[in-house]
């Protein structure tokens, strides 16, 4: 196995490679380094959040340009009309499902809380849409739309929230905490943020050992990315050249903490530089940008060129979960992003810009989505609660419970000729 050259230019290209790095003795200009961080956005919001004192209390305040015009959707390099409409439909389903969940909550049918991806539907749906069937993904809490794109039903998620026997985890876990390694290649998230990233890298490693370069897509928030394990995972994928596609959901807030208090660089995509992988920025409210960047990353992965970090800039348009009214968020920030609602923008693009959807077709689509969600809701509501005893069993994988075999075929082994020899070398502690 050859390892990359330490000096000299990097081979792969669509990311932040050092463009120009002149080293001249003693010349202070030599210290300038240039990196490419493609930025697909058509606007660059310019404001920031601060803690300020107001009498006895501290509050968050936003300062900057909050009245800038809403940019157009960026035409996709790849998506055709049909695909755009399909993504749009998933985004509608995503939002409508979450509205249904909110209602179920109000009716007392949900156990625990509800998490929303409001304002982030483009990011969830268009990214998942960029995967091929054999690729893998793992959602975070705001990616309930990704689940729909990957073929789960709205009722799956609804039953998870209602802790029903029919839920994918049979009541044992809630929210989007479920997985499917057989058909949909989804790894279940856990609550602890960041741990999925090395795991997904490991999925790509396993597939590669079986002869397949798959893309493994997962997400991390602007808050969750502060965990150390996030970077252990990115680095592992980087040195092993694994097809990790990491979408950083830069949505201004981590629970009540603004991203200004989470990190000090300007854009999280800049962190890709230190890992020697491409970093890309997109407008997370623009489905076409999200798709294009993800698709390019997925293709890199399929070519065996390794990991990509995509920072999607957007806003969490509700509180952390349903209990949280997000009163700490300065209202102008909501207003700014409300004008950039990903569904409204995409609808405008399809109905008014491209005219790929007539008003009638659009209305029909919305009605169809309503109907689907209503039907899914019925299924979910009618699923029974699990029995108490169903808490038992399954701690271990017992005999006959699973037949384990390599997903993409038996690894081809290239064995060296060396046989087994006893070892006698010096060791660490005797």
């Amino acid at each position, binding site marked *: 196995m050859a390892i990359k050259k330490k000096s000299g230019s990097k081979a792969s290209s669509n990311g932040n490679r050092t463009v120009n790095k002149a080293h001249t003795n003693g010349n202070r200009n030599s210290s300038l380094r240039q990196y490419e961080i493609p930025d697909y956005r058509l606007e660059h919001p310019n404001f920031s959040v601060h*803690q300020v*004192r107001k009498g*006895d*209390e*501290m*509050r*968050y305040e936003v300062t900057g340009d909050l009245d800038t015009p809403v940019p157009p959707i960026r035409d996709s390099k790849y998506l055709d009309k049909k695909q755009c409409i399909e993504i749009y439909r998933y985004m509608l389903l995503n939002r409508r499902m979450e509205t249904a969940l909110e209602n179920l909550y109000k009716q007392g049918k949900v*156990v*625990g809380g509800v998490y929303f991806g409001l304002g982030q539907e483009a990011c969830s749906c268009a990214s998942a849409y960029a995967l091929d069937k054999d690729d893998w993904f793992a959602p975070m809490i705001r990616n309930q739309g990704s689940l729909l794109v990957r073929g789960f039903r709205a009722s799956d998620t609804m039953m998870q929230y209602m*802790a*029903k*026997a029919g839920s994918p*985890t049979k*009541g*044992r*876990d*809630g*929210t989007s*905490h479920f997985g499917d390694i057989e058909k949909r290649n989804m790894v279940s998230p*856990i*609550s*602890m*943020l960041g741990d999925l990233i090395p795991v997904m890298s490991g999925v790509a490693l396993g597939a590669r050992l079986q002869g397949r370069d798959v893309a493994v897509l997962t997400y991390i928030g602007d*808050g*969750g990315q*502060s*965990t*150390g*394990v996030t970077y252990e995972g990115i680095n592992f994928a980087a040195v092993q050249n694994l097809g990790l596609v990491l979408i950083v959901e830069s949505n201004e807030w*981590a*629970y*009540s*903490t603004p991203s200004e*208090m*989470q*990190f000090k660089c300007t854009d999280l995509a800049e962190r890709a530089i230190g890992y020697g992988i491409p970093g890309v920025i997109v407008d997370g409210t623009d489905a076409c940008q999200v798709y294009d960047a993800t698709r390019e990353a997925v293709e890199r992965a399929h070519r065996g060129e390794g990991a990509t970090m995509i920072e999607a800039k957007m806003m969490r348009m509700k509180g952390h979960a349903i209990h949280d009214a997000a009163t*700490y968020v300065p209202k102008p920030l909501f207003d700014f992003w409300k004008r950039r609602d990903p569904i409204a923008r995409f609808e405008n693009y399809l109905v008014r810009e491209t005219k790929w959807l007539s008003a009638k077709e659009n209305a029909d689509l919305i009605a169809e989505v309503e109907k689907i969600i209503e039907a899914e809701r019925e299924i979910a509501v009618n699923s029974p*609660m*699990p*029995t*108490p*005893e*169903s*808490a*038992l069993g*399954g*701690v271990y994988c017992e005999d006959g419970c699973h037949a384990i075999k390599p997903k993409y075929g038996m690894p081809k082994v290239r064995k060296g000729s060396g046989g087994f020899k006893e070892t006698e070398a010096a060791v660490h502690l005797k």
Partner: protein
Amino acid sequence: MAQLTYLEAIRQGIWEEMERDPTVFCLGEDIGIYGGAFKVTDGFIGRFGAERVIDTPIAESAIVGAAFGASLTGMRPVAEFQFMDFIPCAMNQISNMVAKTHYLWGAPAPLVLRGPSGGYVHGGPFHSQNPEMWFVHNPGLKVICPATPYDAKGLIKAAIRDNNPCIFFEHKYLYRRIKGEVPSEDYVVPIGKANIVREGSNLSIITYAAMVHSALEAAEVLKNDGIDVEILDLRTVSPLDREAIAATVRKTNKVIILHEHSRTGGLAGEIAAMINEEAFDSLDGPIVRITGLDSAVPFSPPQEEFFLPKVSEIVNEARKLKAY
């Protein structure tokens, strides 16, 4: 005396220590303007400022490490875990850095790690855990699990004043469900001392945290059967109050150990071994364990209920043991 919730008692305890001692400060995720996921530090930042009520990035090892570093300069940090389920994210920092410091190189580390733990609120497998045993099995730490508002306030104050690293498990089921009398004068509850919360003569239930309340409920039922239950609330699970444990066993000769976390490797084992050592001859029946199941805590209410110890289970086991 005021009637306070368990949560208010903890809030007051930390608040008072911050008023009293400028070296006390708080750090954690969302503890500032938001006041913490459970509002334990609600209003603190307004009073004490952003310097002493620090909203951190989501990085538990950094939070514990920074708290420890600050403690080495003579500060008394109080670090919040948003949920105690996330404590393994800082495991090495706690186990190998914080806990071993005083033994190895003699530096005291007066810090408190605190946060909500426990089930009965349908929090699911990642928001219901009781990971205290890992720290009981980790010399150098004090591990505190209060059951009442009075103890919670007195123990959080004691923990903040203690010169050792203390892990303070707040039971989230109790936060707003129980109220109790809490004096307005300054007081502490000593760390390492258990408390008889109900005197009795027929059998002892040794327990702590939310389970104290289940034991009390069960005792009321058992009274009607003529079974007179003594309940020992451990309050601190490390170091354990050996004398109090031995004394109640010597008195009643029969013992149930009740805890919420999974059975295998749980605290009941340690206590069983202690009882064998201290009061083997006093035992008139096998030591009975009532505990959570050996699995993750399932989410769905019927499953969670099945997983967790129930009052009915305590009643049944007590009847059997009495009859032994």
